[in-house]
């Protein structure tokens, strides 16, 4: 399809990028933490992908290449924003620092996916991801939210697969520690059933 687009069938570009629209937005939202900025950056990113299509060599998957361009666009937005004094700069966590001990518990009753009908549960999960330090948020977003494989996530981030695994492990532990106390409130310990189902008590 890329060859046909480059040969002049420009409209095919719409079909080419449709499977990536969501992934690019979510990645940029996770990076910029603003829907408006993420949408604007996504538009700029897709225009760059279109204009640079002839430089795609097929060494990586198209999705990896396109997500890398989108991520670079997001990083450029971050740099622009950090130049504005009213924008707080996120602290950069050193790879070696941080507490990566999980929350200790003796019993876990599974929270089923149906529970995500509850908007406050979705918000808890979203906020926990957005609160992660950037280097850990990146890997969770690509690996667990977008479900890219380790190699692809490494390609998008420009780091080794081993580094992806280390960061992913730490990120998952941090999420577990943050979310276990919150999510436990969604389970009724007496019966082991969800306390809320679609807005009503059971």
């Amino acid at each position, binding site marked *: 399809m890329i060859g046909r687009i480059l040969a002049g069938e420009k409209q095919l570009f*719409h079909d080419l990028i449709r499977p990536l629209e969501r992934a690019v937005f979510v990645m940029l939202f996770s990076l910029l933490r603003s829907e408006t900025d993420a949408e604007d950056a996504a538009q700029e990113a897709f225009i760059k992908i279109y204009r640079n299509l002839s430089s795609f060599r097929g060494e990586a998957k198209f999705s990896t290449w396109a997500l890398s361009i989108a991520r670079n666009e997001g990083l450029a937005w971050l740099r622009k924003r950090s130049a504005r004094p009213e924008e707080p700069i996120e602290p950069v966590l050193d790879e070696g620092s941080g507490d990566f001990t999980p929350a200790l518990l003796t019993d876990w009753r599974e*929270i089923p996916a149906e529970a*995500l009908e509850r908007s406050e549960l*979705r918000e808890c*999960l979203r906020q926990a991801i957005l609160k992660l330090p950037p280097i850990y948020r990146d890997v969770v977003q690509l690996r667990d939210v977008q479900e890219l494989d380790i190699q692809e996530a490494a390609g998008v981030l420009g780091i080794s697969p081993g580094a992806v695994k280390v960061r992913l*492990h730490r990120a998952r532990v941090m*999420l577990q520690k943050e979310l276990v106390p919150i999510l436990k409130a969604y389970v009724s310990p007496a019966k082991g059933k969800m306390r809320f189902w679609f807005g009503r008590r059971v």
Partner: protein
Amino acid sequence: MKIDCKHVWHHISAYIDGDVDALLRAEIDRHLEHCEICSAILDSTRNIVVLVADGRIFEIPTGYSERLHERLDAAMAEG
């Protein structure tokens, strides 16, 4: 090889992804059989990984796709 809780925690993410070798997996499984703390840590972490992957966690703004393709059409028209 006998492993302790901290050793299990260190491999939780790889264990969830099926990225530990057979020997280590067998050791972790043996540990999990008698350690309710590590079992609960593993279950809760795996549960969170599944929930995070749900497409409803991050929603796309209404009209995002339409606005994107309109913008692309405008960019393509410019050349």
